[in-house]
Every structure is written in structure tokens, then in C-alpha cells.
């Protein structure tokens, strides 16, 4: 039955992690998932795919036993399988007296204990386990007429190496970035935190993709409530496939309709490691070259790793530039519109006359001009983003120089407006994280409209609505504006707008109360 409009709207307003997302019809093999292993059934189901290979061979023990090695071509290391599985059971071990004692009953145990020198071998009994293992890249050794099988770890596929970060460049920090392989990513974190308290909890998400997901945290640093909440929300996610970890963001965040990101993505292992040490949780998803970090606060989105590698005095300057940049990116067009439309008395006479002179020939109001330029800017940004680099640069030049210049010459916009919008665009690039920068782009337009219709009063209304929204936001229960509001005075003074020198930090200046993440602030 089709849902009514109202029930659809009700669904939309439900928190995503509080409901089961979808129900999938089960295929025949899904129904046999818990059944005992039947090689014939598995072959029937999987052999229709060209990349799945079954290699049959005979083992002559006390009796003649047919074995089958099942693998997915491209996901296994063939050399390893040839050398440590097939060659041994077909050639080297055949002279061993114990080999000759093998029967259908004891073959699985004998092979696992004596004749499979791989570092990870496991006996399995259920259909689902066998299929999961094969599709994940392990080799599965079946024995005809037996309901047991061996999973031999022989994963080996083509991967991208550990490259330098593309989106989060660093001047003094490490130059390693995550790649698409889960185990490489976990190893990059483990290399930094060499302590048993680093926990890596695995789970699978995606009805068809069976994507491996790892929850990482440091025991005793993190609030158990937050870990439990992360697990609960991940367990609720029911989708076909997790193509990239970023898909999970919308399922996990507290306020999916907010323009502000409540989960941090990073491609840098050093940022993940420092976040874990601060008591946060990392979510690592196979096939994704970035890691999700929760809970987060707004100041985290204004910090970069170089802030902690550079000297404190320099960081004060750089961070303040970043905050000013963000303020300009949000406010510059709105302030210009409000001042030129409603509050000309703020300007000295010469400047007021200069602005009036430059706007004399333009047919639009300040709001109209700003909207025109901002829309052009957004179009150019979006157009240039996904083009190949050389063409992208050309688009930038065409946009900034040719269109801007032509618009001024045609008296469509005033030169000062071009400066204001240009400054706004450049300032937006000082925001380190794209997800926050794009959120700011989203709120700029309504602010301009409010400033153009009600001056500073309208701008104030818009800013206060945003402030109240930010004050009400939470990331996994942690207030998003912490440590500003609720005030955590030490963190606010030591690592928010400025960073205190390392030697002055007697304790880590945690931006969140990791022991009581839901608390209202300083008690």
C-alpha cells in the first residue's frame, strides 16, 4: 500500500538510527545460511559467476577423498595457495605416514593441524560461513561428502599503496594517508598507538556488500556510553551496500537535517590517533580512504594537525586567521548588503561616496548584485570541482577574470561587490574541512536575504537562529559548541581559539568531557 504524504513526512522526521531502514526479500541461499555445509549446493549457487573458481583434487589417504579448493579469482594470493596448500597436499605431504592415515572422518582435523602451514586456518560447519569467507577473499577447502570445511586465509588483491594525503595537506606533520584497505588503515593507527588498550571491534554492514567495519577506541579514555551508542547506531543500519564509509554518516549523525557536519572525516592516521587518545571513537570502513570520528565539536572542524606540530605562538596567529576567514566567509556579503542598504551612517563620508559612485550605474540593489555574483561563484566552484585539473584551472581563470571583469564593464555589478565576493570565496578556503565549508555556503544565502530586507536586525535574527541551532546540536550526545557553550574553561583557554604551548598543558585539553559526554558543562 502506498504511504500517505503525512506518513512519509513522519518517516522523514524520524531519527534514522531509531528504525530499521529496509526489509529485503530473501534469496534461496539466504534461507540456507545456517544449514550444514553442502559443497554441491555452494557450487550450484556460486559457479554461475565467472570469477569464482573451484579446484578439485584427490587425496589418497586410507581412502580416496575428493577435495575442492574454492576461491574468488583476484581476491586471493595464488602463489601463496599454490605453495602452501596445493603443493603440500598434492605433492610434499603424500610421503608422510600420517597423510596415508587420513579418512573422510579425520581429514579436516588432520589438514588443519598438520598439512596446512598458513598462519590463519579455521574449521567451519555452516553454509553462510563458507560463502562469506570465499567472498571476503579467503580460500575455502571443501571435502566432498563432508559437512565441514577449512577457511585458509590467503587474501591478496591489488591495492593502492599508502600515499600522501590529498585533501588534508600538512607542512610539518606525517605524510601518510589512509587507503581503501581496511587492514592497512588499522595498521597505520596501530603503528601510532602501540598499547593493548587500543580496541578494534569488527562488524559487518550491508545486506549484499557485507562490508567490514571496525570501531576503534582506547579503553579507559573513552566513555563506554559513547562506544555503546556507536555500536547501537551501526547495528541499526540496514542497507544493501556500504559503497563508502561516508554513506554511514547520515545514518549515524544526531541531526541529519542540520547544515553542519556532526561527524569528522579524515584521511590522516595522526588525526585519528590523536582523536582516539582524546577519548573519541573512530569508525573505519573497508573500501574507504577516510575514517569517521565521533563525537566531534565545532572547534575541531577549525583545527588542523599542523596546529599541534607548529610552535604555539605561530598557531595563535594561524588559527585566528582561520576563524576570521570563517567569519568573513559567512558574513562579508551580508554585512556589505546591510551597510549599503540600511546603515550608510556607519561609513565615513568619503567611503560612502566612493561606494555610491561605483554603484551608480548598476541596475540591481546590493542584494541583487550579491546574489548574482554568489550564484555565479557557486556555479564556477561546482563546475570546476570535478573537471580534470588543467581544465578546472581554466574555469577558475575564466570565471574570476573574464566573467567578473565583463560583469563590471557591463555595469551589471559594482567593482566593490566583486571584491567582496572574491574575499568571501577566498576566506571560505581557510576552513580546513570541506563538509563545514559547504555548510557555511548553505547558510550564507539566507543571511544575505535577511540582511537585504531588515539590515543588521535581520542579520542578527539569522545569526541568532544559527547560534541557537548550533547550541542545540549534539554529536553522539556531546554538545556541538563545547567547550564554548557549555563552557569547559580549560579546554576553551588552552585549545579552542588559541593553543597553549605543549609544556603548559598539564593534561590533554579535551574539547569534550569524555567521562561525562552528555554533561551540561563545568559543574
Amino acid at each position, binding site marked *: 500500500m502506498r504511504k500517505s504524504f503525512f506518513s512519509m513526512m513522519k518517516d522523514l522526521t524520524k531519527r534514522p538510527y531509531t528504525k530499521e531502514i529496509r526489509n529485503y526479500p530473501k534469496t534461496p541461499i539466504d534461507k540456507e545460511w545456517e544449514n550444514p555445509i553442502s559443497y554441491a549446493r555452494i557450487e550450484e549457487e556460486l559457479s554461475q559467476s565467472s570469477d569464482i573458481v573451484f579446484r578439485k583434487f584427490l587425496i589418497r589417504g586410507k581412502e580416496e577423498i575428493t577435495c575442492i579448493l574454492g576461491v574468488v579469482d583476484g581476491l586471493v594470493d595464488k602463489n601463496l595457495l599454490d605453495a602452501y596448500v596445493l603443493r603440500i597436499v598434492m605433492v610434499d605431504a603424500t610421503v608422510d605416514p600420517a597423510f596415508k592415515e587420513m579418512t573422510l572422518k579425520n581429514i579436516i582435523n588432520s589438514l588443519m593441524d598438520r598439512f596446512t602451514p598458513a598462519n590463519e586456518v579455521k574449521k567451519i560447519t555452516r553454509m553462510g560461513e563458507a560463502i562469506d569467507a570465499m567472498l571476503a577473499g579467503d580460500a575455502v577447502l571443501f571435502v566432498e561428502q563432508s559437512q565441514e570445511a577449512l577457511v585458509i586465509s590467503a587474501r591478496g588483491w591489488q591495492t593502492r599503496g599508502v600515499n600522501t594525503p590529498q585533501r588534508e595537506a600538512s607542512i610539518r606533520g606525517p605524510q601518510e594517508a589512509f587507503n581503501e584497505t581496511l587492514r592497512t588503515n588499522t595498521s597505520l593507527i596501530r603503528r601510532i598507538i602501540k598499547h593493548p588498550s587500543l580496541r578494534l571491534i569488527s562488524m559487518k554492514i550491508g545486506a549484499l556488500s557485507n562490508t567490514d567495519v571496525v570501531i576503534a577506541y582506547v579503553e579507559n579514555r573513552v566513555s563506554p556510553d559513547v562506544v555503546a551508542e556507536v555500536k547501537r547506531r551501526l547495528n541499526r543500519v540496514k542497507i544493501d551496500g556500504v559503497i563508502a564509509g561516508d554513506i554511514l554518516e547520515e545514518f549515524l549523525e544526531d541531526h541529519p537535517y542540520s547544515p553542519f557536519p556532526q561527524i569528522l572525516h579524515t584521511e590522516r592516521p595522526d588525526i585519528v590517533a590523536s582523536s582516539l587518545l582524546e577519548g573519541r571513537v573512530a569508525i573505519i570502513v573497508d573500501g574507504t580512504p577516510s575514517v569517521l570520528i565521533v563525537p566531534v565539536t565545532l572547534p575541531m572542524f577549525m583545527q588542523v594537525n599542523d596546529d599541534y606540530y607548529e610552535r604555539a605562538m605561530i598557531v595563535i596567529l594561524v588559527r585566528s586567521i582561520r576563524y576570521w576567514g570563517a567569519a568573513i566567509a559567512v558574513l562579508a556579503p551580508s554585512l556589505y548588503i546591510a551597510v549599503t542598504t540600511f546603515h550608510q551612517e556607519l561609513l*565615513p563620508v568619503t567611503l560612502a561616496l566612493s561606494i555610491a559612485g561605483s554603484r551608480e550605474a548598476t541596475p540591481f540593489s546590493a542584494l541583487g548584485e550579491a546574489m548574482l555574483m554568489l550564484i555565479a561563484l557557486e556555479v564556477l566552484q561546482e563546475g570546476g570541482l570535478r573537471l580534470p585539473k588543467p581544465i578546472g584551472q581554466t574555469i577558475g581563470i575564466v570565471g574570476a577574470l573574464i566573467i567578473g571583469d565583463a560583469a563590471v564593464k557591463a555595469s551589471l555589478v559594482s567593482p566593490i561587490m566583486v571584491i567582496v565576493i572574491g574575499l568571501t570565496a577566498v576566506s571560505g578556503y581557510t576552513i580546513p574541512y570541506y563538509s563545514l565549508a559547504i555548510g557555511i555556503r548553505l547558510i550564507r544565502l539566507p543571511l544575505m536575504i535577511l540582511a537585504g530586507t531588515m*539590515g543588521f*536586525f535581520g542579520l*542578527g535574527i539569522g545569526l541568532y*537562529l544559527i547560534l541557537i541551532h548550533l*547550541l*542545540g546540536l549534539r554529536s553522539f550526545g556531546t554538545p556541538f559548541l563545547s567547550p564554548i557553550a557549555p563552557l569547559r574553561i580549560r579546554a576553551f583557554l588552552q585549545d579552542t581559539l588559541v593553543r597553549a604551548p605543549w609544556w603548559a598543558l598539564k593534561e590533554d585539553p579535551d574539547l569534550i568531557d569524555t567521562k561525562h559526554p552528555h554533561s551540561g558543562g563545568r559543574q
Partner: protein
Amino acid sequence: MQRLSTHQFTMLTAGVLLGTTFMVSGSIVTQAAGRDGWMAVMPAFLMCVPFTWMIFSLVPKYPNQDLVKISEKVLGKWLGKALGLSFSLIMIYFGGLFASQGVDMYNRTVLPLIPHYVLILGVSLITFYLYLSGIEVLARFAEVIFPLVCMALLFIAIFIIPRFERGELFPILQNGITPVLSAALNISPWPFEYVLFLAGLLPFLPAKPKDLKIIKVNFFKALALIIVLSTIVVLVQIMTFGPFETARLTYGLLVLGNMVEISRTIAGIEAVFTLFWTGALTLKAAAFFFAGIWGLQSVFGFKGKKSAIIVGIIFVLIPLLGGKGVNVVVEMAYIDRYIILPFAVLWILLVWGVDLWKHRQKSL
């Protein structure tokens, strides 16, 4: 239930105590006490201390209850409900007038051409959003806004120093202490507006017994801060305009803001301060709105957002259909003097006194 931290309580107290009193304080106190008007601020604000002490003394005996529910227990159901209903009506009506006065301030100064109702709807929008976000968000809002308002006031005070005429303050107490006390009496209802808000805020205060001690201390800190700030604001106006002009200017601070000049780059930044004054205005308007709804919830047992929406519509209609301009300021002064002050004093004294009497009866 949402709980405030002690720091949030302090900021909320300071924010609600201050409100936008700094706008009109200079005019009101100098009308009564002339150049000695600045001395009236401290006694006026200190008048609320015994009553807050009485309220705090009831908290351990009636945990997680506001003064309306405490009244029902102490004074009986019907008298308690009647007092609670009166409390709610006063808070909602005064809150609406307060929003109207703020809007009048904008209409008369920086935004004379924007229609009255547009400005009212703007302020009401923020107020409702604050209400829907909850008391914890209001407290966080105060944590952000109150320091900004303080900075803006100090900024004006510092940049207006070149225009000071120190001679305007002398001779001190030329007409004796009586005009100062009269001026203090004129503004004494202001802290009682906060006292009434506190009466509704009680269930949201930190629950631990040790926190009550901190809260009492923090209340005094906030009160001292507001007394100092308000005194500075009045002093600055008297020294800049002289007592006669200060008494004449209803919104003297806005004129001061217009006189601030930074080099030759920015002049008359009155409009910029509008951003901060809007924050102070909505903080206090929201506090009244919260208190009004808490009262109704306690009296009638309302829950959910439907009742809040109805109250919200009434809250908007009050400034929309009510008077404008000086009439609002005059009406507010009357309500302050003849309703809020006597109601707060009588209600708190009655509840506290009867409770004390009952406890003594029990112990005998």
C-alpha cells in the same frame, strides 16, 4: 529532565538580571536623582537578595519543584493554583510588552522604516526557537550572549571616554539621600523580574546539595557583576550628556553608541551594537516566555508543544495589538511597579512564611 550546571545558572542569572535594563536605566534614575542617579543601582538590585534567599531556602525541602507547586503544597491547592496562574499571566504579558519595547527601540533609532510587526515577528521567532530548544539551550545561549553584551557595553564606555565631563558628577549628594532612594525604588522591580523567573527555574537547577551552596555564591557574583555594569552604564551617560540630557534621552545608550568613533574608518556604530542588544532582548523575552509556560504547566499539568503554541500566539499578539512607542515604556513601568514588585514580594513572603510556620508547628 534537563539540568543546568552552576556556571550556566550564573550566566543565565546575569543575562536575565541585565536584560536590556542598560538601555533605559540612565534615563529613569537620573529623572529621580539627577547626577546622583548612579548610586541608585546598587540598593535597587540588592533589594531582591532576601527574596532569592527565601526561594533558595525552600529548594532542599521541595526538590525538583517550582514555586507554583511549592505554593500548592504550602498554601493549599486552590490558592497555589491561583498564584501560579497569576504568575504565568504576568510573565507572558510582561514578556510580550518587553519584546514590544525592544522593537520600539529599533524603530526609533536604527530601523525607522521597517514595519513594527516584522520586527516583532523576528524577535518572537528567536524566542520560540529558544523555547523549543529547551532550557539547556537557553542557558548556553546566555553563556555566549552575556559576555558579548558585557564586552559591547565596556567597548562603548571605553571609546566614549574622550567625551567625559567629570564635572557633571559633582557635587555629590547635593539634594541628600532621598532622591537616590526614590530612584532606587523606581528601578527596584527589575531584579524582581528575575526573582519571578527563578521561581520557575528551580526544578532545572543542579540537584546535588553541594551545588546549592555554589549556586547561592554564584548568584551573588552575578548580582555584583550586574550592579557594577549598570552603574558604569549610568555613570558614563551622566558624564557624557550631563544629568538633564540623560534624563531626557529614553535610550541614551543608543545615542552613546552613535557617538563612538574609531579613527576615521568607522563612525556611529550604533547599528552594529543592534546585533548584541537583540541577543540581550531575546534572552530576557525568552526567559519570561519559559517562566509563563512553566507556570501554566504546573497549574494545569500541560505537557507537549501544543499548549506552548497557543501561549506563543498570545505572546505575539500582545506586542502586535498593544501600544507602541513611549506608551509601552510607561505601561511596563506601571506593571513593574504595581504588579511585579508587590506580587513577587507577597508571593514569596507568603510561601516562605507559611512554610516556616508549618515546620515550626510540626517541630513543637
